[in-house]
């Protein structure tokens, strides 16, 4: 029951590591796919901008590996966005594991850009395993300027100007736009739901 944290860069992924440590969940940092051979699930953390992050995933072989991956995957923040088809942040194609495009968030009167702070989760899809024990209106912590508009793979929403995909899922592939590792008890619950779900 080991989780691989996909290490996309030299940047700090300490918050995800500490969150797993708080849950007593064993993990490895995997810069390349062969370093995750023993793991039964994968976390793609939210580090970097879309362009450089995709370039690193291509370079390390992770992009190709993730496209044929059969283990459960959880993308976090930018990592969630990378699961989609395309992002206007970099104008480049992404992993394409979940259909849809990442657009620039235009909050209007909702507040400043980017979206930074605690916000509520709503419109849960019944049976979503990540939301087990989580209630509508529970709050989680967001930091993002781009977003996935609500679509067929949205299983929880928030609102900041437009409705924003807070959690997306297609099969084994799921992503949180918010930072569960920085979202206190609710975030810990979501992470442990991911860790405990049947692989």
């Amino acid at each position, binding site marked *: 029951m080991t989780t691989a944290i996909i290490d996309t860069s*030299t*940047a*700090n992924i*300490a*918050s995800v590591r500490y969150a797993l440590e708080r849950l007593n969940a064993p993990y490895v940092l995997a810069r390349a796919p062969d370093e995750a051979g023993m793991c039964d699930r994968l976390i793609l953390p*939210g*580090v*970097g*901008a*879309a362009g450089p992050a995709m370039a690193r995933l291509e370079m390390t072989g992770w992009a190709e590996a993730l496209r044929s991956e059969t283990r459960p995957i959880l993308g976090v*923040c*930018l990592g969630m*966005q990378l699961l989609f088809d395309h992002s206007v*942040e970099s104008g480049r194609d992404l992993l394409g594991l979940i259909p849809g495009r990442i657009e*620039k*968030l235009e909050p209007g009167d909702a507040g*400043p*850009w*980017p979206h*930074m702070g605690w916000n509520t989760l709503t419109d849960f899809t019944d049976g979503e395993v990540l939301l087990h024990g989580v209630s509508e209106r529970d709050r989680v912590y967001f*930091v*993002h*300027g*781009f977003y996935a508009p609500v679509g067929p793979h949205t299983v929880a929403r928030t609102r900041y100007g437009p409705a924003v995909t807070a959690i997306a899922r297609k099969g084994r592939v799921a992503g949180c736009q918010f930072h569960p590792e920085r979202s206190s008890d609710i975030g810990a619950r979501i992470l442990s739901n991911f860790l405990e779900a049947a692989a």
Partner: protein
Amino acid sequence: MNIYPAVDVLDGRVVRLEKGDFDAVTDYGGDPVSAAKAWRDKGAEWLHLVDLSGARDGARRQHDLVEAVAKTGLKVQTGGGVRTAEDVRAILDAGASRVVVGSLAVTAPQTVIGWITDFGAASIAAAFDVRLENGAAYPTTRGWVERSDRTLVELLADYRLAGLCHALVTDIDRDGMMEGPNLTLYADLIKIRPDMNWLASGGVSSLDDVKALKKAGMSGAIIGKALFEGRVDLEEALAC
């Protein structure tokens, strides 16, 4: 809006580093004090002096230079590798009006908060070299190699009680590249923290950039390369 002509000084010479790289030095030559006097004579009130020697090696900090520039009547805002309270004190004692704190403002906010308490918020400016990721500005350290886990706005919340009021912000992907300042970044920061005095650092390449920064509500603009290379006329910038 204040205009801060920027003079980067390495071993007594006026230079520019391309994207912060000590291996990509452009030597503008000459004596920094003469450069300072030239800006003063054109109406500058402030000089932004970057002590690159001090940044590389604290023992080689150019205190005499700060003193000489302060004696020209210019207010001096200066930094480069400020690491200790003694550094801050020595720079202020040399006649600087404001000390710019770089990496430590990101890696050791509690230390810098102590300096703000001891020396006063007017005497300290925090400089943030930020990288934009998914729209959020993340401070970087160690020559832009490492990135803070927290965004600039989150970090600045730590400084709220201490009263930090001067922040220099550089979008490192624009610095020295003559692509214009990142106006949307500054506008967003002003919107989120209108209580701060925001100083734009890096990227100013035309008078239109200066006008746009002023219109956005910036407290100051630090201009280096564009002044040295004549793309921006200081008198016009001060008048706009």
